[in-house]
């Protein structure tokens, strides 16, 4: 079980300056999301350090209009997209949890345990 991998989706689905959420259990609630900034792909848990709850207000809607901040739609916390550092809001100074991944055959692949464990790394 510990070595099971999960193919989240095609890396090409994540546009430059945009984000894409993933819902491996298919219940309508994304639990991890990718974003691409300055050509670099980042993968974060969809879990605000403030209340431990999901952040997007609509599927894939994690960023502000300018695309330079991740915004938690629950209570307005804002994070740097490439470091996950909270720069405004109730969890100021805390960080989003990064998710380790690899690109295999154009797909984003991660270990199942990376996105099922509840504790922060």
């Amino acid at each position: 079980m510990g070595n099971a991998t999960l193919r989240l989706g095609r890396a090409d689905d994540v546009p430059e300056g945009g984000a894409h959420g993933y819902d491996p259990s298919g219940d309508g609630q994304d639990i991890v999301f990718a974003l691409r900034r300055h050509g670099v792909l980042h993968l974060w848990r969809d879990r605000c350090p403030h209340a431990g709850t999901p952040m997007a207000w609509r599927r894939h809607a994690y960023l502000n209009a300018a695309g330079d901040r991740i915004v938690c739609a629950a209570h307005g916390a804002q994070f740097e997209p490439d470091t996950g550092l909270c720069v405004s809001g109730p969890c100021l100074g805390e960080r989003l949890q990064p998710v380790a991944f690899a690109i295999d055959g154009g797909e984003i692949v991660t270990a199942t345990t990376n996105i099922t464990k509840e504790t922060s790394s």
Partner: protein
Amino acid sequence: MNIVGLDALVFGVDDLGAAAQYLRDYGLVDAGGGRFEALDGTAVVIAPENDASLPKPPTPGCRLRKTLMGVADAAAVEAIAAELGKDREVRHLPDGSIESVDEDGFVIGFQVTVRRPLERVGEVSNAPGSPIQRAVNSNGVDAHAPQIRPRGLSHVVYFVADAVKAEAFYVGRLGFRCTDRFVGVGPFLQPSGTLDHHTHFFIGAPAFMTGVEHFTFHFAGPTEVMQNGSRFVVKGYQAFWGPGRHELGSNWFWYFNSPFGCHMEMDADMDLHDKHWQPRALPLEADNSQVFLLRHRAKWMPGPGTPHDGDYA
């Protein structure tokens, strides 16, 4: 003071088109000019966050710019202006409303209410023995129902730096009444012109968080909340809490993340109370926050190939 409830909430947003789509999908009617109305004419109003005509938010991170309350008549507007004018600026606006601020810097307005009387039966269930039933041959649910419409603006919940001070202002200066409270957190408040369990709820929080936790409109009943909420999920909106039913107020709830920097709820079947009601005081814990809590699932049916554990497999 005879405040009958919320007339409108005004937000400054960074993506007007996305926020407008969200409100249309929620069920509000686009009345033009950034105004999105419920069936009774109460509304959410949105404008670009850099619109210079918007009042200032209480804190930089708060997207709510103004809470507009409806009152019974012009005399009530003037009574509030006289009361608030004792210790703070009250502005008379060209539309006949007044504008001021509360203890936490939330801009508040008062006008003769825009609420239109609604004469529509709410959700009625066919309970054996009940004298009130649905009309014979009328179906309880319509899978293909057109867009479900919220009936009216229900309540707003503020994070406030000092819930005791906030309560004293709304009760002492504006004639609200506490109907219930979460000990050490804050009160549910009802203005004098409605029987709704609450139009305001305050949550004590660090001062930099002063802002909105959520706001919501009333729907016709639990079926509308479930059906509208399920459609909302299918459209990609992200649920935060629910569906479920609260203990204090008894309202059905389903909270969603929103582009307004707070949650937007769908609610139904809130308790009505008058002056004979004795407020309850409960500690804030999961057990007291809801009577039960459910979760959206993808549609499913039992049949050939059903796992041993059914839907819970």
